[in-house]
């Protein structure tokens, strides 16, 4: 089902997410509403455990909400099957995880290439795009190394390149500078700036003041609820 009611790329209504941890029931997101316009850069902040990562996982289609509606790029993700969500993640969303999540047995170039390989793009196109992306993130000299042979900052840049491989309209980043030093953090911020300039819709969870400064919209979560929203 495709819904293009307004210019929102992400539209979340009455979103709830509950986890069962043994006997305990943990409510991570409580009746959350959020809207992100096309080309908008939204920074989501809030203390640890406030539900930032869970919100991002649900918007990306990696996780499903307990209740509520999640419409991303016109698709209601709550009613889609796993195959649809896989294609959606592959073509429409670029996701940068806080812990990088690179495949340890693949080289840097292979890590960047595999979302395109899943899309069954021609070999020549993949080769060209991988070279371009590695040049963009300044890691062309590390193409044949394994992730474990890279620094944290370098791994995060590979994760950025991978997230951009299929040129997705929506870019999600979960605390992209959370594990990095200032210098590497600045590089990541510059990349986000570049993406913003290219018109991508970006949602990033962060505590980083530099990134928050870049954002068009700042959303603060507290205890699973929307605490404040600044434009």
């Amino acid at each position, binding site marked *: 089902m495709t819904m293009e009611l307004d210019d929102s790329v992400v539209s979340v209504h009455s979103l709830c997410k509950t986890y069962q941890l043994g006997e305990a029931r943990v409510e991570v997101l409580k009746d959350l509403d959020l809207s992100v316009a096309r080309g908008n850069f939204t920074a989501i902040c809030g203390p640890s455990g406030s539900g930032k990562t869970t919100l991002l996982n649900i918007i990306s289609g990696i996780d499903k909400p307990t209740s509520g509606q999640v419409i991303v790029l016109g698709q209601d993700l709550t009613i889609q099957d796993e195959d649809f969500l896989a294609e959606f993640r*592959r073509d429409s969303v670029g996701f940068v995880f806080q812990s990088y999540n690179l495949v340890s047995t693949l080289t840097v*170039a292979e890590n960047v290439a595999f*979302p395109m390989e*899943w899309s069954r793009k021609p*070999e020549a196109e993949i*080769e060209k795009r991988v070279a371009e992306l590695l040049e963009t993130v300044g890691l062309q000299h590390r193409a*044949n190394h394994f992730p474990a042979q890279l620094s944290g900052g370098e791994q995060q840049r590979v994760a950025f390149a991978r997230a951009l491989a299929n040129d997705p309209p929506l870019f999600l980043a979960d605390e992209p500078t959370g594990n990095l030093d200032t210098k590497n953090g600045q590089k990541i911020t510059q990349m986000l700036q570049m993406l913003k300039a290219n018109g991508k819709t970006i949602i990033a969870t962060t505590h980083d003041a530099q990134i928050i400064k870049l954002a068009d919209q700042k959303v603060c979560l507290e205890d699973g609820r929307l605490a404040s929203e600044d434009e």
Partner: protein
Amino acid sequence: MSETSFPVNDLLRRKLQTSLTVITLTLSVASTLFLLLFSERIGFGIASVTEDTLTYGLSVVFSQFILFVGILIFAVGAVITSFIVFLMMKQRTKDFGLIKAAGCPNGLVFGYFITELLMVTFSGCVLGVGLGFGADFAVSNIFDFQAHQKPPNLWLAPLVFAAFFALALIFGAKPMLYAARLSPIKALSPVQYFDLSTGHKFKPLSRFGLTLKMALRSLFRRQSASVRIIILLSIVFVLLTVSISGGIIANETTQSWIENAVGKDIIIIAHTSMVAQYKLLLSKFFGAKENGDFNYLDERLAIPSTVLQQLNSTPKIATVDARLILKEHVQEVSNFTIDPETLATIPVGDNREGDSLIVGVDPQKVTATWSIQGQFLNMDDGFEAVIGDSISHAMFSQPLFQSIRLQNWTFNIVGVCVDPINNGKITYIPIKKLQNLTSTSNPNIVLVKMEPSADRSATLAQIKDEITSGNSDLTVFELDKVLQENLSFLSSAWSTVMLLPFFTLTSATLCLIGYAMLAAEEQRQEFAILRATGAKPKAIIVILAIQSIVVLLSSFAVGISLGVITTLLILVPKPVVTSATVLEVAALLFTALAGMFLLSLYPAARLAKTSILKNMT
């Protein structure tokens, strides 16, 4: 945290991995113990059944088969156990590095993990021994092996426990010793864990066969894990091939020995009491007993020469095999050989004595073809003898270098044959010699084989008419019924033995599922990342299925080749392998392969169904 509480808490925290390792270890120990107990019961059963039945040559085939399968079962169990603990401890290399990096001294970290290893191994081995005895008890009662009821051999329990416990400790400690030598940063790195090296030139995977290429890339990158599973499966397939093909080939070979020695579509013509005696001699193969002495040289048993003339002139009869049968006391004749190096004489044999059925035959006119070591009689009046396998084992050291004495005549032994008549306690010599020795001019039994083109019932009716019209005491009897009884007995003995491969396959499959789940666990995070970036769950199952097929087929090729060589060269002398046998063995092995493949998909399906977030963390 105390030194002992850390390992316990750590194991409890890693519930899935710990329980998988303990369960797989338990299954491995239990199945090995159960199969050894079970094969010992079958071996004992066969031995107690064969004491007065079968022939020595056939008993040897049975016992060799059971012994070899027993050794392989132990080897498979040992390899599975070693690999399980190796995999478990290798997966902890990263944790080793983490704890070291946090400042814990090397010796203490090593102590933690060795304590964990000891706890897991001890639990698995103890549970395995208990489950093994339980399975043996249950199966013995369910299948009611009456011939094999004897208490289980309790010595096998400490033997299996000690061997597997030691193996688990050695193979489990190996990766830990290796991790202890690494710097924390190296221990933490997957490059170390997967033995990865740089220098792969980037080449994107083409659209054609993408999933296949992805599967192969992942398989070859994880070289050490792939090689481990291929070695393990190859040994399992050797065991399967030996037990399935060995069992079938041995069954068909021994059946063919009996069928050829007795002869197919044979008609016997003899005095009514001699026919009964001949049937009894053949039935001793499956336990029939003789009652008192039978006078083979009774004049009434002699077959008149006119009968032989009649038979020889009857159309459509291919062979008329006139025999003189009697029971006689025989003696081993010792001999000597010369050592080619020292030229010293070496004595061979002794002067052992015993009773044997003596069968005088015309070597050119025998209806049977034996499985024979050496050759059959050449001359129709030479001093040559062919002895049965049981008498050869009981009375001779190197029969083909020795002679056999019958009364005062000595016959050179030229061959040893497998023969069910009188359970292999038989000696064939030329009929002319036996007639001279006993001063008898007539045979006492005639075996007749018709031409293949003959109308069997018409020719049989003609023989009956011609023979019985003038000789009311003679009986014409078709031997096939007794042959079938012999073959059925042999078949039932093999069908009991063939339960061994069936249980072997079941236990090997259970162990493999455990191992496959541990191995899938190793790739859990990698697949979660692939799914998070766009791979469909089906693609993950296909990747794992392709990896499974590659691993299974590689192991299948190695295991089957080694298994077939072992079966044909070591286990079954002069094997009979017909195209039907090949098809039967191939069908069973491919069924086993397909079954293993389908079961190996279970961990893949489970992995694909689990949420991405759960797999990623």
